[in-house]
């Protein structure tokens, strides 16, 4: 059910059945996803999935909470979930300082739906890929990747009067080109299928792949690196996960813990969560119905704050910034619209600042639990790593493992690109990050591979 009036009526009718004195909120997410995966320039997985995710939270006696989740998206399913949530709540211990459910607040109008995207089906995906495969054949490389197109809606309703509905679409195309000895990547993401330029992405992936053929081995050590936007996003995904949420901040494991107001990285670093930025899948409210706010994490190198949901905000006597993931995930806010401020450099200028260094297209399998207070990450390069000498890209190099503190690395940023790119994160639940390319001095690589 994606019709606004019908859905909000259904949710209101369910809320009418909440017992007197109890409170309730309902999160309703409906998604129809079409996904085509391809490898060696041939489709190997192709699907359409239609599912709903409905979380019903009931609060009885003011402080006892139960949550039930169902995918039965009709009045019977919702009523059953309501009863189950109430049953669970009645057996609970009281929760101290339980924040009240959000009251209705104005939310910003945002354009998050595109009918052409919703109508883009398996045949259209196949026709796009056929053209891409021909491009690849002509260059004697093979393509692998995924083409995903989704449509659906998010609705939140509660007994305090919140009634919110937002239709959504998204399109994502990942293109990897492979030769015998190299690979190259290009990715595109948008709310609108018309903004996915498959030809351009395919050319970019092929170009990167061909430039990287017959990669050479280089010694591990410290290198200046030009991180392309996808590589920057791969790092920020983990920096976000371990550092930008109130849970980690309050528990003392974040590198921002007890550092607010202090200069922690270079003056040129500004990072925020901006749910209003249309380049990053803007969205007006969180999964509890709180309007989303723009939240600065680092401004000109100074630690400024983290994102909150209602639980974590109450703990500090603050208000939620609108970063809840819904009734199932109390106490676990997460930033999903990371925006990093651009600089003033062109790519050519950044390359020109490198005497000897590496250009990194992306990272693989990054992990940030080694030392979260210093945001130490480790991971591998992948799909296009190049040696740069005298400001010129010389040749591809074999993949390398890095291990470095991001607090240190972000203190050594010598240049930031003026162009930014919306890059899809590695986790499907996160929206694209809007990030520039970074030139970082002395990035630490600890070992290599044979490919």
């Amino acid at each position, binding site marked *: 059910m994606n019709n606004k009036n019908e859905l909000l009526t259904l949710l209101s009718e369910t809320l009418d059945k909440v017992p007197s004195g109890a409170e309730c909120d309902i999160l309703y997410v409906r998604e129809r996803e079409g*996904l*085509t*995966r391809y490898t*060696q320039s*041939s*489709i*190997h*997985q*192709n*699907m*359409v*999935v*239609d*599912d*709903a995710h409905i979380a019903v939270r009931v609060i009885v006696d003011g402080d006892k*909470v139960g*949550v*039930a*989740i169902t*995918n039965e998206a009709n009045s019977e399913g919702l009523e*059953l979930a309501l009863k189950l949530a109430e049953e*669970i709540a009645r*057996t*609970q*211990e009281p*929760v*101290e300082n339980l924040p009240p459910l959000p009251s209705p607040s104005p939310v910003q109008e945002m354009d998050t739906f595109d009918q052409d995207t919703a109508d883009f089906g*398996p*045949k259209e995906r*196949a026709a796009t890929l*056929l053209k891409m495969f021909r491009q690849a054949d002509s260059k004697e490389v093979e393509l*692998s990747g*995924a083409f*995903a197109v989704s449509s659906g809606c998010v609705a939140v309703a509660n007994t305090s009067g919140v009634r919110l509905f937002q239709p959504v679409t998204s399109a994502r195309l*990942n293109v990897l080109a492979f030769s015998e000895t190299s690979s190259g990547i290009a990715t595109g993401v948008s709310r609108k299928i018309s903004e996915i330029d498959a030809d351009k992405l395919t050319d970019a992936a092929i170009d990167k792949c061909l430039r990287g053929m017959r990669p050479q081995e280089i010694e591990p050590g410290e290198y200046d690196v030009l991180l392309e936007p996808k590589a920057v996003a791969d790092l920020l995904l983990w920096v976000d996960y371990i550092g930008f949420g109130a849970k980690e901040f309050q*528990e003392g*494991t974040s590198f921002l*813990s007890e550092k607010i107001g202090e200069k922690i990285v270079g003056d040129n670093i500004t990072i925020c969560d901006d749910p209003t930025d249309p380049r990053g899948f803007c969205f007006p409210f969180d999964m509890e119905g709180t309007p989303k706010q723009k939240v600065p994490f680092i401004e000109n190198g100074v630690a400024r704050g983290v994102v909150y949901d209602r639980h974590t905000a109450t703990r500090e006597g603050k208000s939620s910034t609108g970063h809840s993931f819904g009734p*199932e995930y*109390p*106490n676990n806010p997460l930033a999903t619209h990371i925006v990093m401020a651009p600089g003033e450099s062109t790519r050519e200028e950044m390359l020109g600042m490198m005497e000897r260094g590496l250009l990194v297209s992306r990272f693989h*399998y990054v*992990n940030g*639990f*080694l*030392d*979260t*207070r210093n945001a*130490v990450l*480790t991971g*591998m390069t*992948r799909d296009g790593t190049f040696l740069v000498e005298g400001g010129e890209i010389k040749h591809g190099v074999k*993949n390398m*493992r890095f*291990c470095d503190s991001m607090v240190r690395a972000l203190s050594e940023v010598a240049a930031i690109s003026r162009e930014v790119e919306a890059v899809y994160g590695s*986790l*499907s639940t996160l929206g694209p990050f809007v990030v520039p390319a970074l030139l970082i001095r002395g990035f630490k690589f*600890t070992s290599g*591979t044979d*490919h």
Partner: protein
Amino acid sequence: VKDKLIEIREHLRKKGVDYADLRHESSTTQQVRVRNDEVEKVSEQRNSGVGIRVIYNGAWGFAAASSTADEDLRKTADMALEVAKASAMLGKKKIKLAPAEPVKGSFRSPCEKDPFGVPVADKISVLLESTATLQKEDRIRVAEGSMRFNRKQKLFLNTEGTEVEQEITVSGGGIEATAVSENDAQKRSYPTGHGGDFATRGFEFITDLDFPGHAEKVREDVVALLDAPACPDGEFDIILLGTQMALQIHESCGHPIELDRVLGTELSYAGGSFLSVDKLGGFQYGSDIVNITADATIPGGMGTFGYDDEGVPAQRYDIIRGGYFQGYLSSRETAPVIGRTSGGAMRASSWSCIPLIRMTNINLEPGEGTLEELIADTKKGLLMDANKVWSIDDMRVNFQFGCEIGWEIENGKLGRIVKNPSYSGITPEFWGACDAICGPEEWHVWGVANCGKGEPGQTIGTGHGTSPARFKSIQVGASQ
């Protein structure tokens, strides 16, 4: 539902499909989580739907929907066919499945005490007792405990006549403490991190784990970690306890033996594998004491089932024997590439997902002796426990793993605790350096609840039977 699925199967046969299978799943998941002295979350999730896989003109199509109303089921089947027709527009080679004998059967995982029959209040009580013990130290910032239970009923039919029903119950959980000082934060868990240990068993599994009985040790360890020196860098003989061995097996053996990865179908996402098909039978993966099996039949393992999601019966077979590479995890589509029939490893995390080749229980067979004897036999080294950091390259060769805690070993005795221990290596070199594996008395099947693979992401349980083991001259330290 079965009658409806049979009707849809006939509908697809009449449409001229080469092959079709239909999988209905209905699951209930209960989660209980406490934080410090409060209940953070009690939830119950019910989820059901049907996934339909079709081969038409040699190409795959898949469609899935939560509704099982007659009209919706037919629409889902027709959509699977439409998707397959779109795939066929680009298919370079026609899909041909390895033969599989049609089977009719059922399977139910062992469950002595129904976890859904145990009152939530009793579960909360066990967790709160544990967190109360964990909190008896000022520097403990957060004490957490959680349990998760899942029961899934599955019905599978295909156009070759296979019809199987399964009911699998999963229980698991763990406790964890976070201690914080001015410049450091440390975590310690029991029985291991990432949510704890899991099994396809009933509540008896939780009772056996005895969270409250282990909370004091967790508290002592995590506070000691705050004051401990950093793990030294350099080459050391290392002993990995079972919790970390499970992760080591999972990442450096389990994933690279997935034949779909080897054949390139995960290249664009998680990557490929160094274990190319030319290595089958002749490649030395590890030392001669390394014997690894894939065993979907072992009772209680998270990778245990009666039939995979292609209706192929569960199997046990060699992956590594005497250090040499002998077998892959495979499916009906991939097995013909290596001249074999399916290894029965196709699993989907839910009805809404395409089955992929997934680990079953990937087990390192036990060697000899106790952990105490192994430590006594180690002149200088490090002992590490409980995974904290995991990172491995896209071909599963270059890895760096970190643990919650380490201990120095000097002249056969455990010494000081060291913090942030990590080690790195190259997969076949690392397994080639394995010179001791403890015996059956130390062997346990660890349940990993959250193995991720595929797009959209699928999370599934895998099992890893192992004893503690020793590896010679390993690079230790992050060298950051």
